[in-house]
C-alpha cells in the first residue's frame, strides 16, 4: 500500500516542480498563484481609483466598481483556497 | 461634541428667523395702531442680527459662527400723518400719526424669513443624515 505523499502543488503553489504528478494538479498550483497576483492587482487598482475619485480625477462609479471587483476577486480566491484545502484533506482521509 | 456643532448653528438660525417672523407678525398686526402704551403710534420693529463665534476659545479664522438676535429695534422714521380731525388720536392740527409699517415690504420680509427658516431646517436634516451614514461604518 502506497502512502500518498502530500501533493506539494496544493500546499505551496510555488512548488510546481512536477514530482510525477499529473498535469491538472500542476494547473491548480499555478491557478492559485495567478489568482493571488490578480487579486492583488485588483486591490491596488481599487485604491488608485478611490484616491483618484476623491481628488476629483476619476468618476465615482469607477471607484465603486473596482472596489467591488476587488472584493469579489478576494472572496473568490478565498473560496478556491478553501475548496482546495478541503479536497486535500479529503484525499488525506482516503484509506489506501 | 463636535457632531452637534452644526446642529447648534442651525438651531441659532432657526431661533433668529423665528424671532424675525414674530416681529413681522407684530408689525402687520399693528399696521394701523395709532395708540400704544408708550403713547404715540406703533413703531415698526425689526431684529438686529449678529454673528457670534460658537465657543469662546475658537480661533478668529476657520470657525463657523452662529447667529444671535442682539436686540429688537424700533424705527421712528417715516410715521405717516393723515388728516382726520374727528379721530380720537388726532393732534391739535387734526393730524393722526399712523405707523411706518409697509405691509408689502413686511410680506416680502416674511417670505425671506420663511425661506431662511426652511434652509436651516434642511441643514439640520442633512447634518443628521451625515451622522446616520457615519454610523453605518460600524455595521
Amino acid at each position, binding site marked *: 500500500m502506497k502512502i500518498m505523499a502530500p501533493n506539494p502543488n496544493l500546499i505551496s503553489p510555488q512548488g510546481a516542480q512536477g514530482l510525477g504528478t499529473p498535469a491538472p494538479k500542476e494547473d491548480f498550483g499555478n491557478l492559485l498563484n495567478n489568482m493571488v497576483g490578480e487579486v492583488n492587482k485588483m*486591490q491596488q487598482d*481599487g*485604491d*488608485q481609483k*478611490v*484616491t483618484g*475619485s*476623491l*481628488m*476629483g480625477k476619476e468618476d*465615482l462609479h469607477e*471607484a*465603486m466598481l473596482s*472596489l*467591488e471587483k476587488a*472584493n469579489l476577486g*478576494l*472572496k473568490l480566491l*478565498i*473560496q478556491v*483556497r*478553501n475548496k482546495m484545502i478541503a479536497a486535500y484533506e479529503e484525499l488525506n482521509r482516503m484509506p489506501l | 461634541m*463636535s*457632531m452637534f456643532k*452644526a*446642529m447648534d*448653528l*442651525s438651531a441659532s*438660525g432657526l431661533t*433668529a*428667523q423665528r424671532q424675525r417672523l414674530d416681529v413681522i407678525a407684530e408689525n402687520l398686526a399693528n399696521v394701523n395702531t395709532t395708540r400704544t402704551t408708550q403713547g404715540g403710534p406703533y413703531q415698526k420693529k425689526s431684529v438686529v*442680527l*449678529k*454673528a457670534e463665534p460658537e465657543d469662546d*476659545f*475658537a*480661533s*478668529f*479664522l*476657520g*470657525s*463657523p*459662527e*452662529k*447667529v444671535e438676535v442682539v436686540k429688537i429695534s424700533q424705527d421712528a422714521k417715516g410715521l405717516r400723518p393723515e388728516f382726520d380731525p374727528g379721530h380720537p388720536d388726532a393732534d391739535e392740527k387734526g393730524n393722526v400719526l399712523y405707523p411706518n409699517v409697509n405691509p408689502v415690504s413686511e410680506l416680502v420680509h416674511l417670505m425671506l*424669513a420663511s*425661506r*431662511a427658516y426652511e*434652509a*436651516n431646517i*434642511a*441643514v439640520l436634516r*442633512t*447634518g443628521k*443624515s*451625515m451622522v446616520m*451614514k*457615519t454610523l*453605518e*461604518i460600524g455595521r
Partner: protein
Amino acid sequence: MSWGAYTDGAMRLLEKSLTWRTRNQEIIAGNLANMDTPNYNRKEMNFDRILNNYARGTVQEVGLTTSNQGHLPGSDPSRTLVEETNGEVDLDKEMVYMSQNYLAFQASTQMLIKKLETLRNVIDGGGK
C-alpha cells in the same frame, strides 16, 4: 503584523475626506444661519486647494484651533482649511454646496465601508 491596510494611502485619504466634509457641513451651517446677518462674510472650504495641498504633502490645519492657542492669527493662510471670503451668502448657492458636500461625504463613507469589507473578508475568509 503589517497594518498596511489601515494606513495605506487610500484609507488615509478617505478618513481625511470624511473629516473635511464634516467640517464643511459646519461651515455651511454657519453660513446659512447668518444669511441675513448684515456685514457677514461667508466662509468656505476650497476643496481644490485642500486636495492639491494634500497631494503635495503640505500639512494643513483647521483654522488655528488644532494647535496651541498661543499661536497668533496670521500664520500662513494658505495652510488653513477654512477661508473667509468677502462675499455674502446666497441661499440657493449655499444649498447647492450643501448637497454637493453631502454627496461627497456619502461617497467617501461608502468607499470606506467597502474597503473595511475587504479586510473583513480576509479575516472571516476561512469560515466556509
